[in-house]
């Protein structure tokens, strides 16, 4: 797997992401500064990691979405390349128009720093291949603006086309308002692009990939990516 992690000013989860990708693939990903204009040759996965790019100025992800490197990321996406965006990375993907909707301030106005539970809504994608549909797993979250919003028509389309990747659920795996800490529309935690090659989500699977971190609940996402690339190789 040739992965490239994009680093913006204010990104702070790039090393966590590197650990996760390295653990799953055995290869160190490239770290690319936002001023670059090209991805390393042969890059098959671009990761936009978490953090607070550009201090969340204007809107979370709005500035990063206009960075020089994003033209190359967009071209990579247009070629059907894999793109993963976590937390601020999800916000950047939305601001760049790679995924639909918007991420509003959490409904409680509180910054949420806690574990959540996600349910896999769409199995068999490059991001979820190692899970069964309906499987649940724990993931840390740390965000102030993760309240997923889209108009009803867009939400219906996402659901109808099976593009909801993950939903916030309670310990029994049920979709409840209590499990939906940030107030996201229809408990949506993560979504997919129509070609299933791009995924954005708010929680941080990369922060639970080693027993030393307190669990390996997030590892299947990265193993899924490695597996999907091995299949296409």
């Amino acid at each position: 797997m040739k992965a490239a992690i994009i680093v913006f000013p204010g990104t702070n989860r790039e090393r966590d992401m590197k650990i996760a990708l390295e653990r799953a693939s055995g290869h160190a990903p490239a770290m690319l500064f936002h001023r670059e204009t090209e991805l390393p040759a042969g890059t098959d996965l671009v990761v936009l990691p978490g953090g607070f790019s550009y201090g969340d100025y204007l809107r979370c992800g709005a500035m990063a979405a206009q960075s020089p490197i994003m033209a190359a990321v967009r071209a990579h996406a247009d070629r059907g390349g894999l793109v993963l965006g976590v937390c601020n990375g999800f916000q950047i993907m939305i601001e760049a128009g790679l995924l639909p909707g918007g991420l509003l301030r959490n409904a409680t106005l509180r910054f949420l720093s806690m574990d959540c539970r996600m349910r896999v809504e769409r199995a068999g994608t490059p991001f979820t291949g190692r899970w069964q549909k309906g499987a649940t797993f724990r993931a840390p979250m740390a965000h102030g603006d993760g309240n997923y919003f889209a108009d009803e028509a867009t939400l219906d389309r996402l659901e109808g086309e099976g593009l909801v990747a993950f939903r916030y659920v309670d310990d029994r795996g049920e979709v409840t308002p209590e499990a939906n800490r940030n107030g996201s529309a229809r408990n949506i935690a993560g979504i997919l692009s129509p070609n299933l090659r791009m995924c954005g989500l708010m929680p941080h699977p990369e922060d639970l990939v080693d027993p030393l971190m307190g669990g390996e609940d997030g590892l299947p996402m990265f193993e899924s990516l490695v597996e999907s690339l091995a299949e296409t190789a």
Partner: protein
Amino acid sequence: MKLLVTVMPKNGVLDPQGKAIAQALGTLGFGGVNDVRAGKVIELDVAETDPAKARAAAEEMARKLLANTVIESFRVETA
């Protein structure tokens, strides 16, 4: 010339900031505040001197960057 771009959460989009401000106003004893919506104002100083052209440019800026039209609406005025 100067332009003001007012960016507001769209109607129907949850505005937790506005809600919190409304609550605080109530706490301060300001009764009768039915609703509060919080947005932002962006002031632009542009070289263009033709108001129609300046306004059109500002609207383009708002659509491309200043507002996220999925969740926000905007209004451009010449100052």
